[in-house]
């Protein structure tokens, strides 16, 4: 049926040949792949740093790395994972590659700005990496750059912070592009309530990117000003208040958690209907809960500061708002699970990751409520419990959402298919390793193991060892999963145009899509999850 289809996007070289056809391409799909390669490379680096920490933690006395090296390890692991991987991943990779296709457009609203964002991202990344090599050693402040320590430490903080500032600018511009694209580039008939829920996820996220990121931008600029000129606004010696730094930092960095998780939730909302062959339960509630999470989630930052000395009134309000965010999050989970009911469920690899997402996100979300409640937080603040909690949310949530998206859209992106059996085994190894690793961390934290310590009391030794072993299993699972995908990319069988029977627009065009996406811009006549009977498919 696609006998005269245009050449696929990755052979269509456009105006420039070779590598320049990639790094100067303004085609949204090529930019998506540029991000994919960059983000996954940084992910691999940060995973290695994480494993080094878990080797150190095998024995109470450590001995694998020096204490200062351990400080650097957790700082750089955090900075790379948060700013280079988790925040940009889904909006830049899948937002770029699929947003225009999902709404029936040919490209993003601002293709050149899009390319500029990638260059800004790469520049930021290079600056961060340079900061590790230049000056008096790599940053040891943790990813939060808390003052006054970040003002006093001798290591190269200003350059690292400047790199993160550039990454933030890139994120803002991506957000601007996504919001404008969603408003301007929709195909005829593609009303807001006919958009796939993944688009709603990206759209809500983009607003948070635009509104919250500038605040960390200015905070980081102030750190640089403090370091270079000593303006004094965060320096207690000059009357400055470190608590204000924490406020400004978390005004961005808590909403950033929703920048991470919302697009993943959107993709999961796309997967449940497809693999249950049934319309999503409560389309509008799922769509609006994204906006609700984005808006209420922007007002909860103070729950990071219950023990920092903010007023009790503030703590109570922040705690209440934190509990409120759980409502739209839970609404989503109920809708997903209800979608399964009486559905015709097919557990293909993408759906396995979606189910894994729900299990892990549930644990992450509920442990988040333990931390959001005033009195338990005092007990577990700054322990492994916090570390376990946010890895459940960020890795178990956003990470598994990313893996689900990778497995779901892989055949569309590359026109090849990976091995299902191997993907299933890899998922199981990853899932088991993950839980052994982080569940043990939750228990350790509950027992009082503080985070960011390079050594620990002997009574924590058995659980620490189990946690480390879990991390090795998990990394094995990751290696199997990526190995399988790479093998599929190189040697995989040709994928059909619509392997999962999806009803959204990306499945109505060839795999892989042409540079222009659609031969003719489609006219949309129905919702995204209206499935035809199987025999009507070609």
């Amino acid at each position: 049926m696609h006998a005269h289809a245009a050449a696929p996007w990755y052979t269509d070289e456009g105006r420039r040949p070779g590598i320049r056809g990639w790094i100067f391409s303004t085609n949204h799909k090529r930019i998506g792949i540029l991000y994919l390669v960059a983000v996954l490379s940084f992910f691999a680096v940060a995973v290695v740093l994480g494993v080094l920490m878990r080797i150190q933690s095998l024995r109470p006395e450590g001995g694998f790395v020096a204490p200062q090296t351990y400080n650097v390890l957790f700082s750089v692991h955090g900075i790379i994972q948060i700013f280079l991987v988790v925040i940009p991943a889904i909006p830049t990779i899948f937002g770029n590659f699929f947003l225009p296709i999902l709404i029936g457009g040919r490209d993003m609203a601002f293709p050149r700005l899009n390319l500029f964002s990638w260059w800004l991202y790469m520049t930021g990344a290079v600056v961060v990496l340079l900061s590790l090599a230049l000056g008096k050693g790599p940053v040891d402040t943790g990813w939060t750059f808390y003052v006054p320590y970040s003002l006093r430490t001798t290591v190269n903080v200003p350059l690292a912070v400047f790199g993160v500032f550039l990454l933030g600018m890139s994120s803002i511009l991506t957000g601007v592009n996504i919001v404008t694209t969603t408003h301007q580039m929709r195909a005829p008939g593609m009303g807001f309530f006919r958009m796939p829920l993944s688009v709603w996820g990206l759209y809500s996220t983009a607003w948070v990117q635009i509104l919250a990121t500038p605040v960390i931008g200015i905070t980081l600029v102030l750190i640089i000003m403090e370091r270079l000129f000593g303006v004094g606004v965060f320096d207690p010696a000059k009357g400055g208040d470190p608590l204000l730094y924490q406020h400004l930092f978390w005004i961005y960095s808590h909403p950033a958690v929703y920048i991470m998780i919302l697009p993943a939730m959107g993709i999961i909302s796309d997967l449940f209907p497809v693999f249950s062959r049934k319309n999503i339960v409560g389309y509008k509630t799922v769509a609006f809960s994204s906006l609700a999470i984005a808006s209420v989630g922007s007002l909860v930052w103070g729950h990071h500061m219950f023990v920092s000395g903010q007023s009790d009134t503030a703590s109570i309000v922040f705690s209440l708002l934190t509990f409120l965010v759980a409502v739209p999050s839970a609404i989503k989970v109920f809708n997903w699970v209800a979608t399964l009911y009486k559905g015709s469920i097919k557990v293909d690899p993408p759906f396995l990751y979606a189910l894994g997402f729900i299990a892990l996100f549930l644990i992450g979300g509920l442990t988040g409520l333990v931390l959001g409640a005033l009195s338990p937080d005092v007990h577990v603040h700054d322990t492994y419990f916090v570390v376990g909690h946010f890895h459940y949310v960020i890795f178990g949530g956003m990470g598994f959402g990313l893996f689900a998206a990778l497995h779901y859209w892989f055949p569309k992106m590359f026109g090849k298919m990976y091995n299902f059996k191997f993907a299933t085994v890899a998922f199981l190894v990853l899932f088991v390793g993950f839980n052994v690793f982080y569940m043990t961390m939750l228990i350790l934290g509950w027992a009082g193991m503080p985070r960011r310590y390079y050594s620990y009391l002997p009574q924590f030794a058995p659980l620490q060892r189990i946690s480390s072993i879990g991390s090795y299993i998990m990394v094995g699972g990751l290696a199997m999963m990526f190995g399988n995908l790479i093998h599929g990319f190189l040697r995989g069988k040709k994928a059909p145009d619509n392997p999962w029977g999806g009803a959204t627009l990306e499945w109505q065009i060839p795999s892989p899509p042409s540079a222009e996406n659609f031969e003719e811009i489609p006219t949309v006549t129905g919702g995204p999850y209206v499935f035809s009977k199987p025999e009507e498919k070609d």
Partner: protein
Amino acid sequence: MESPEHSTGARIGMWLFLLSEILLFGGLFLLYATYRWKHPGDFHAASQELSRLDGTLNTAILLTSSLTMALSIFTLSRERSARSTRRASLFLGATILMGCAFLVVKGFEWAAKFRHGLYPSSPVLLARPPGEILYFGLYFAMTGLHALHVIVGLCVLSTMLALLLRGSVGPERVAPVENAGLYWHLVDIIWIFLFPLFYLIS
């Protein structure tokens, strides 16, 4: 001729970007509010040392430059002729000159502060009460960041002037000039807030 959807898109994008700029300064205004509330007396005392004349002069300059900016866009979109392009270029050139004048006045102001030993971490300043240290810290941070925005704005406007003279923007393609104008107005508006907050404390 640009398509209407594209120019709407460009405008939406610009407004979103301006929103993020406002929030960038928002963080600083938050710090200002907190510290002024904590040290009202020190802030008042410190503000007496700023030159109200320079501040007022700069406010007048920047407001007038916003007027010429708006006139430039107005002439471009009212009629399509070589004459309107020429006039718009003149208005744009006047805007750029006034932007430069703003920076010159600002430069003299800063230089005077430095001569009096008032700059971040200076011995003179560190001997003052914390509220005054914070006031001058914020003064340099906020007017400095604002001046940086003026410089960026001047680069953007100069590019627009070059494009206008070359004919790649003009009455047929106003959107880029409009967006540059929006940015310039934002720079102006931020100054409208900085002026009373630093110069007119009573």
